[in-house]
């Protein structure tokens, strides 16, 4: 068997929900332990490193704000890839993945908005401005809420899957807008200083806690996402079992 077909087989093996559940049970404890370790180191670094000469202590807000903002975009990207999986490959777990990711993405976007405000008040002198970056992230937050509402409004996951997949893909337009808003328009929000061509421009004193916290938050996201996907599979099993039980009951009562 060639290397390629083996890879495809592995991927389609994952399409089997039971195999996914077995994999999740094996992976989750390790992911959880790693997440806690990275958070322990990250938080320790966040509070032991020096403050900034201009921002003072408030630079520590960045160690939460930047990873939360990064995850708010990565989570939506994961949802967009899942939406492609639903529409193009009809991967049975793609819809489960998109649905499970939405509340997690909404939470991280909320966190990015609130911590940004709490940094903006002492540093900019205002909680909020309607500049391109802040507005586009706020739109992202509203899109998450809309998708959650849509998923909850439709009982039948088979029907809601395609509709929400199309909506996720249309909304993906917003992600490059968020990323490049600070370059395309004159914003109060500063331009990128970590993920930029030519390397990070911030001092290692701040880069280290930022990186460790970013890894910690990313690990947290994947742990939560896998666990939420597992919950969604269980939820669908409960629904189909109840339906099956109702059918059986109907058949028995009809039989003479």
């Amino acid at each position, binding site marked *: 068997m060639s290397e390629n077909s083996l890879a495809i087989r592995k991927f389609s093996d994952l399409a*089997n929900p*039971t195999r996914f559940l077995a994999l999740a049970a094996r992976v989750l404890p390790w992911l959880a332990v790693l997440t806690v370790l990275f958070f322990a180191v990250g938080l320790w670094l966040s509070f032991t490193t020096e403050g900034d000469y201009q921002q*003072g*202590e*408030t630079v*520590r*807000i960045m160690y*939460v*704000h930047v990873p*939360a903002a990064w995850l708010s975009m990565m989570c939506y990207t994961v949802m967009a890839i899942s939406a492609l999986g639903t529409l193009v490959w009809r991967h049975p777990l793609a819809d489960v993945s998109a649905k499970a990711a939405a*509340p*997690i993405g909404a*939470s*991280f976007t*909320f*966190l990015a908005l*609130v*911590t940004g405000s*709490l*940094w903006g*008040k*002492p540093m900019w002198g205002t909680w909020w401005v309607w500049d391109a970056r802040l507005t586009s992230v706020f739109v992202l937050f509203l899109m998450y809420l809309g998708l959650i509402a849509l998923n909850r409004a439709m009982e039948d996951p088979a029907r809601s899957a395609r509709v929400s997949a199309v909506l996720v893909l249309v909304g993906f337009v917003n992600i490059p807008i968020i990323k490049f808003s600070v370059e395309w328009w004159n914003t109060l929000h500063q331009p990128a200083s970590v993920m930029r061509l030519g390397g990070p421009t911030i001092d290692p004193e701040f880069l280290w806690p930022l990186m460790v916290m970013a890894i910690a938050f990313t690990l*947290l996201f994947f742990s*939560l996402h896998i*666990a*939420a996907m*597992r*919950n969604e599979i*269980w*939820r669908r*099993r*409960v629904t*189909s*079992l*109840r339906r*099956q*039980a109702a059918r*059986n009951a109907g058949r028995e009562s009809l039989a003479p």
Partner: protein
Amino acid sequence: MMSHAAYVLSSYAVAVATVAGLVLWVVGDGRARQRELKALEAAGIRRRSVEATGGEST
């Protein structure tokens, strides 16, 4: 005017509350679904694939 430390502390407090809320929700949701599945199984309702292969689910 709050001190800078107050802004930092409130940021971390919001972060802890949000993350704790997410973790509790995911864990609680999982436990509730597991309970439902166990109750269904106790009532003798099993997945057809499990019945067909005698315990080995597909």
